[in-house]
């Protein structure tokens, strides 16, 4: 087994692991906005998971890229990791990988300097996650044939299902969230004496807290 093959295997393996990690990062990110909790863990566990795994994912992507560049079997310029469509090998599908990686870097860098940024700017960049993951997924499926059969295919589809479910979960909450102008009237209607005894915790008869 030549070192070239080792590098090639390393690139494919780290690429696949990165995809799995990014799936969890994506789901955790949605979980934060939905105020979801991992049973038995404190609230900030979801935040920590999201942040730490995103950094780990970047590390795996870096190894994925470097091992592919170092491998001499095909010629992939190092800059094609961040400049889309700069590689003559699999120009389009690698290009998608670069796009996804660029967006990931933007999200992470803006998150590191969040305190100095306008919140809307930070949010706009973070919303590109909805583009970054699908693009990474397509890059994964089509850059090499690995994920198109067998266990890896099943796992990849599983990742897609998880991300799809997370997106639907998020969309549902966006649709159900009351616009500010309507929240007070809704709370007033629910707080009428005839509505029955109001328990201490926020009852389900009132709009959910996150639909503020």
């Amino acid at each position, binding site marked *: 087994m030549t070192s070239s093959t080792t590098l090639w295997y390393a690139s494919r393996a780290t690429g696949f692991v990165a995809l799995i990690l990014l799936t969890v990062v994506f789901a955790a990110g949605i979980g934060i906005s939905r105020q979801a909790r991992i049973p038995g863990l404190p609230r900030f566990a979801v935040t920590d998971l999201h942040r730490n795994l995103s950094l780990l994912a970047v590390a795996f992507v870096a190894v994925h890229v470097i091992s592919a560049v170092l491998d001499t079997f095909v010629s992939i310029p190092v800059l094609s990791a961040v400049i889309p469509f700069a590689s003559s090998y699999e120009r389009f599908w690698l290009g998608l990988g670069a796009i996804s990686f660029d967006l990931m870097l933007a999200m992470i860098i803006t998150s590191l300097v969040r305190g100095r940024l306008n919140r809307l700017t930070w949010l706009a960049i973070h919303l590109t996650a909805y583009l970054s993951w699908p693009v990474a997924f397509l890059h994964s499926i089509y850059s090499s044939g690995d994920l198109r059969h067998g266990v890896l295919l099943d796992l990849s589809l599983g990742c897609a299902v998880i991300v799809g479910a997370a997106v639907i979960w998020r969309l549902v909450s966006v649709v159900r969230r009351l*616009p*500010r*102008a*309507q*929240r*007070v*009237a809704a*709370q*007033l209607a*629910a*707080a*009428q*004496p005839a*509505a029955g*005894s*109001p328990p201490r915790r*926020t009852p389900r008869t009132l709009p959910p*807290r996150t639909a*503020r």
Partner: protein
Amino acid sequence: MTGVKSAAGGAARQAAAGLPRLLPPVPGDPEELTEHLARHGRPRYHGSALLHAVKSAGLTGRGGAAFPTHVKLAAAKEAGHPVVVANGAESEPASEKDAALLYHAPHLVLDGLALAADAIGAGRAYLYLHAGHAARIQKALTERRNLRLDPVAITVVAAPARFLAGQETALVSRISGGPALPTFDSRRVTERGILVQNVETLAHLALISRHGPDWFRERGTRAEPGTMLLTLHAGGRPRVTEQPIGVPLRSALGLTDAAAVLVGGYHGTWLTAAAVDSLTLDNAALRQHKASLGAGVLAALPHGSCGLVETARVTRYLAAESAGQCGPCLNGLPRMAGALAELAGPRPRRSTLHDVERWAGLVTGRGACHHPDGTARFVRSALTVFGAELKRHASGECTATERAPVLPLPSGYAAPTTEEAWR
């Protein structure tokens, strides 16, 4: 505009007391420029001399917070690129004094606005008021523009019919082109160079500019000099009157008998009749009863009306007028309103009273503005003053014989549900 009369005791007594200062002695149609100048003469103190005069006079804000005006003027001047806003958005349903002032003596307000702008070096001046009043003041503005009376152009900005429209940060948001919603900023509005003054404060300032600080101090108390406009609800139509600060509360109210009195408007405090008898019209005295003058609303609750029913009605209005931006206010005020409605009815649950008290504590100090604080103060004072009535309701009885509402609310009122309602 009807409803403006001199205080109980007649015009003669008022005139002897050097009153009224602000409104014309016989208010009828809006005072035109020539009449205004004939009554008051021309301003004498300008610029830093005026700032000095306002400081010596001890003028405090008449919009409800009673903050020393000279401090605000100095702070806005120092902040750089100052701007002045005359706040005439009288959103308190029970208050009519700003409306009366803007209608009967618009030039006094506009003088004050122009003088303040000149004194702090403001490049722009705004007049912020509800749409109806904006239309009525156009004539006065045109008169002044034709004579190039004011050094700064005055821009009129319409305020929506929201309780919070006159709140300082909501006002700034509206004038900047956004909705009249309170904002959260670490810096005070004045520190950003925006001077917001109630129209009555500016009217007093315009008079100080003519007659000087000593004249201003001829009425009122040493700590709280001057006079103030009141809106009185003591049977019949509400009346706007001007009183020196410090007079006995009962004589200001011009009342013989009441079950209780609401002092300071819907963010104010209920007081017992006995307390009212012992108090004077100044914040130093009222503070001992955890009350304050606010924007000068005094409303008497007649015997035969139920204080809890009135409080419940107003609390529901206050809850509906929440901006809905802050969790504690959004959750707490509607629940308090529901609880008050239950307490105003027969046989409320015992837990409801504890709930209201807990919620009042929870919402205080936890919003971006003081709307929850004021509402909690109003509700708590009701629970104290109407304690006996609470007990009667618990056994299914109510002393009220009169069903007609006492405290005014906008007619045909419904809670706002659109973004447009805040512009």
